[in-house]
């Protein structure tokens, strides 16, 4: 698609795109290229000489048990965060979609956590569930649970998943509500006239019509769990105890911070890049499909 009415100028359009182009090249492509190049190089311990080692850094990485575990952990976190947040948000959206008094108020009261930054989410949740002073920890201990997420890796992971899912409820809720409101009332009424009870109406009519929204949100939530959980993890557990809450992004960050192996850190970045490309690709394919619906 192109405009028919346009301006004629040789230099002006370049001047207009120049600022964005400069930033994109300097701060996006150049560093990304550096990461790719770096991932094929091996530097000696003193940083004096580098040699081209093909895929050695990658092979080394996949032999590393910690990296393999970080991949599995990241996928597990993404899955757990997406499923728990999506199902709770869908329940709330279905309720808020009913013709209730005060439905606008409900929407306002449910969407604001979108604005809470991940590191703050981490601080709120560790305070609430801190082993020695957390308000909720008392009740957990009263239930006989030996609650200490600062020492117990599984509990720390559960805490990260809960906190991350909590933050994402509002986003999912908003998109589910929009999705529900776009379903024509006549379809639901037709099902009701055919004698379908509300639960049956939901599973046979509403849920299938909502599937594009669900799929879209699934991808968005996975991307969120991959990248935006960094702030939550950093204020809550810093990847610990041990490495039990270290995700792929957190590992790139800590490995680079220790400054040890440049090649390995770069290889990790490149693998993450490939994962983003795949996820964004899936997202766009879906957008195209939505257009033709």
């Amino acid at each position, binding site marked *: 698609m192109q*405009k028919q*009415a*346009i*301006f004629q100028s040789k230099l*002006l*359009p*370049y001047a*207009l*795109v120049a*600022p*964005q*182009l400069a930033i*994109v*090249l300097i*701060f*996006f*492509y*150049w*560093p*990304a290229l*550096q990461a790719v190049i770096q991932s094929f190089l091996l530097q000696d311990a003193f940083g004096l000489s580098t040699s081209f080692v093909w895929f050695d850094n990658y092979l080394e990485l996949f032999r590393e048990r910690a990296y393999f575990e970080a991949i599995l952990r990241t996928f597990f976190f993404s899955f757990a965060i997406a499923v728990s947040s999506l199902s*709770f948000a869908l*329940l*709330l959206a279905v*309720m808020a979609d*009913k013709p*209730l008094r005060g439905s606008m108020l*409900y929407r*306002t*009261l*449910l*969407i*604001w*956590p*979108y*604005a*809470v*930054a991940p*590191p*703050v989410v981490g*601080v*709120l949740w560790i*305070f*609430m569930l801190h082993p020695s*002073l957390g*308000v909720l920890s008392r009740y957990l201990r009263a239930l006989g649970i030996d609650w200490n997420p600062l020492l117990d890796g599984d509990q720390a992971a559960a805490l990260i998943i809960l906190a991350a899912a909590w933050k994402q*409820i509002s986003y999912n809720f*908003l998109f589910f509500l929009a999705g529900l409101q776009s379903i024509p009332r006549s379809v*639901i009424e037709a099902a009701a006239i055919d004698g379908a009870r*509300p639960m049956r109406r939901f599973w046979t009519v509403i849920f299938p019509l909502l599937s594009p929204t669900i799929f*879209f949100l699934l991808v968005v939530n996975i991307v969120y769990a991959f*990248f935006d959980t960094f*702030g939550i993890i*950093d204020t809550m557990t810093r990847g610990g105890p041990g490495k039990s809450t270290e995700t792929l992004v957190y590992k790139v*960050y800590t490995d680079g911070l220790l400054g040890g192996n440049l090649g390995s850190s*770069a290889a990790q*970045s490149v693998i993450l*890049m490939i994962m*983003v490309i795949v996820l*964004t690709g899936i997202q766009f394919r879906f957008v195209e499909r939505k257009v033709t619906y």
Partner: protein
Amino acid sequence: MVEEEGFRRYIAHIILWIGIAIVAFPVYLAFVASTQDNAVIANGQMSLLPGGHFFKTYYQTIFVGTSGSTREPVGHMMLNSLVMALLIAVGKIAISIISAYAIVYFRFPFRMSIFWLIFITLMLPVEVRIYPTYKIVADLHMLDSYAGLSLPLIASATATLLFRQFFMTVPDELLEASRIDGAGPFRFFWDTLLPLSRTNMAALFVILFILGWNQYLWPLLITTRDDMQTIQIGIRKMITTTDALTEWPIVMATAVLAMLPPVVVVVAMQKLFVRGLVETEK
């Protein structure tokens, strides 16, 4: 019309209020903690009702800071966050709208290549190029500066895409009409296109402001000086989960202050916020 029976409606109200309680409880707890005495909190004896230290805690937080970990007043951190968020939001909108203008209203060699170059940055979030980007910013001597905090984040594929799509829907007659009035590319942009884009810009601004205010990984990497840290970084330095010395009322007051501006923006400009969110995700 599908009628809902009375008791189903009650259930809906109850579930929604439970949802609101779950969403609000951690924040309520933070506020309550910020009004109580640190010794009581550290003992695990915190009350679930607000205490009497509201003014004392918030005064100390905003103007003095913690007495241990970071001595930086949180008021100053908020100022840093505000400058960064505004630079990012305004910068992204400004450079995206002029790029989109060039791409839609001009024909020039490499037009579509440039569009794709901007578009593909969607797939290069800062997390996948952390250290090489850090190195470039360090080489440009932009560590610990507002330029370093904002410039590398200012490119925006989504904003460019959004403005491009919007410009495509602007009728050609408008350009022809203003050309008859003798307007050149600058006049047309300033007098016709910008006023038409106002709602789009506002919706985008709301989303980008929140995005900018909530930046974490990037400021964490490039700020080392206390007087350059943003509120999100400050709060991280205050909290030492394993250490009994954490000054919890101040940490919680900082958390409340960190949430306040973006939450107010979402609630006060809800229509624009929803519009911006839905449009940037398309």
